């Protein structure tokens, strides 16, 4: 019981909007925080993080805001004469023009033969403007998803799913033997040798999503995956 209590105090502090999180002119407000007179207050609902003098709030919820360089997975929602309009779970529409598409595509080609309505595409954000987001699939690794499993999680949990230097996602890859691509917009593509392996990977990701606030999550995911894989071998 006592050990559990200690764990409780170890989980990080949650703050609500408007809450005073630091006082004095020593602190600098970071993301999710702002200065109000002598105090620094939270502007988002999330976890408080202190880094020296920088105070920031890591949000737990909210829609995905694209940034240049992000890898996202989107679905084609519209085909225009010079590209594709993609749905990437963000407040702004995103566009993949044919010049940014893999290989050479002429304007006279039937664009639906390359990416059709509803196709899932891994793409890179190459620009964020006030009216929308530009995507590209030119570089290696970005293309249409032909098979596999696509799941969606809250985009704020993506850093936890990836882990430090990709430790978490590599762990899942190792245990399940699946190929996994995590889009910054919370869409995750899983491709394994069997559907069972894909389902285990999905369960592990949902486990991370649910327990994203727990300390030492990597170890717990390891235990979780070991249990799952040994169950499978028994069968």
């Amino acid at each position: 019981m006592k050990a559990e209590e200690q764990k409780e105090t170890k989980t990080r502090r949650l703050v609500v909007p408007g809450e005073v999180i630091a006082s004095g002119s020593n602190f600098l407000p970071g993301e999710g925080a702002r200065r109000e007179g002598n105090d620094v207050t939270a502007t988002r609902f999330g976890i408080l993080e202190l880094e020296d003098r920088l105070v920031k709030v890591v949000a737990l919820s909210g829609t995905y805001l694209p940034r240049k360089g992000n890898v996202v997975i989107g679905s084609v929602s519209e085909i225009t004469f010079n590209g594709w309009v993609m749905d990437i779970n963000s407040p702004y529409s995103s566009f993949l023009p044919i010049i940014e598409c893999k290989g050479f595509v002429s304007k006279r080609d039937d664009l639906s033969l390359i990416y059709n309505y509803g196709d899932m595409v891994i793409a890179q954000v190459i620009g964020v403007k006030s009216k929308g987001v530009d995507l590209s699939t030119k570089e290696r690794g970005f293309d249409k998803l032909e098979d596999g499993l696509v799941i969606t999680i809250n985009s704020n949990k993506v850093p936890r799913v990836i882990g430090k230097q990709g430790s978490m996602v590599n762990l899942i890859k190792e245990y399940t033997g699946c190929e996994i691509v995590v889009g910054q917009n919370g869409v995750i593509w899983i491709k394994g040798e069997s559907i069972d392996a894909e389902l285990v990977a999905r369960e592990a990701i949902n486990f991370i999503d649910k327990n994203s606030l727990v300390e030492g999550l990597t170890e717990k995911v390891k235990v979780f995956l070991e249990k799952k894989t040994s169950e499978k071998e028994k069968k």
Partner: protein
Amino acid sequence: MAYKKRYDGRDFDETRKVEAKVGVVPRADGSASFSFGDTKAIAAVYGPRPLHPQFMQNSQRGILRCNYDMMSFSVTERKKPGPARRSQEISHVTAKALEPVVMLSAFPNTVVDVFITITQADAGTRTAGINAASLALAHAGIPMSDLVGSVSVGKIGNSICVDLTKAEEDYEEDGEKMATDIPVAFTLRGKKLSLLQLDGKIRKDELVKALEVGQKACEKIYDIQKKALMAVKAH
């Protein structure tokens, strides 16, 4: 015959039993329920998301759109479903009460939709709706400078009361209506008034006193709202 003791035996500055829960609508980006005794409200927040028609878009910041509605079974006499003059007015004042705290400058050309549904009504529905909406907005990860708390205060006979019930709103002395209903909303830390409506008659000094009492009640609501948000942890 003055109103010396309240019908339900409460103190004059006491609200009904307040309950708040966050995360009640799974498909919404953020949601909350809030109740004052028999008055129950559910709020669901969607967005920020693209706003159509385009002429409503604001290129400087996102807009907040509220929609208040009472379920047809929420009152003793069946309410005709759909928008009405009353619900349009309340939607409008709710948006005005919440606007000072939401900071949507990071989301130009978008909309944040707030849907408030009253499932059970016993006076004070707009105040319960504002409390629920404030929680739901925080849950949806919308940047906010503060939370909003709301309560109705009133004068019944000659006494200032907090959180009137329907029976109290209909209080009569010698066949004359003697109840004044004043819904108020305060930003909780900034202590700024963001909603003030008045139905009935009241003297200036009494109104000042009513606002003070209302603000104190809002502070108690803040504690409950904060507790409710702390209980969700993750989306």
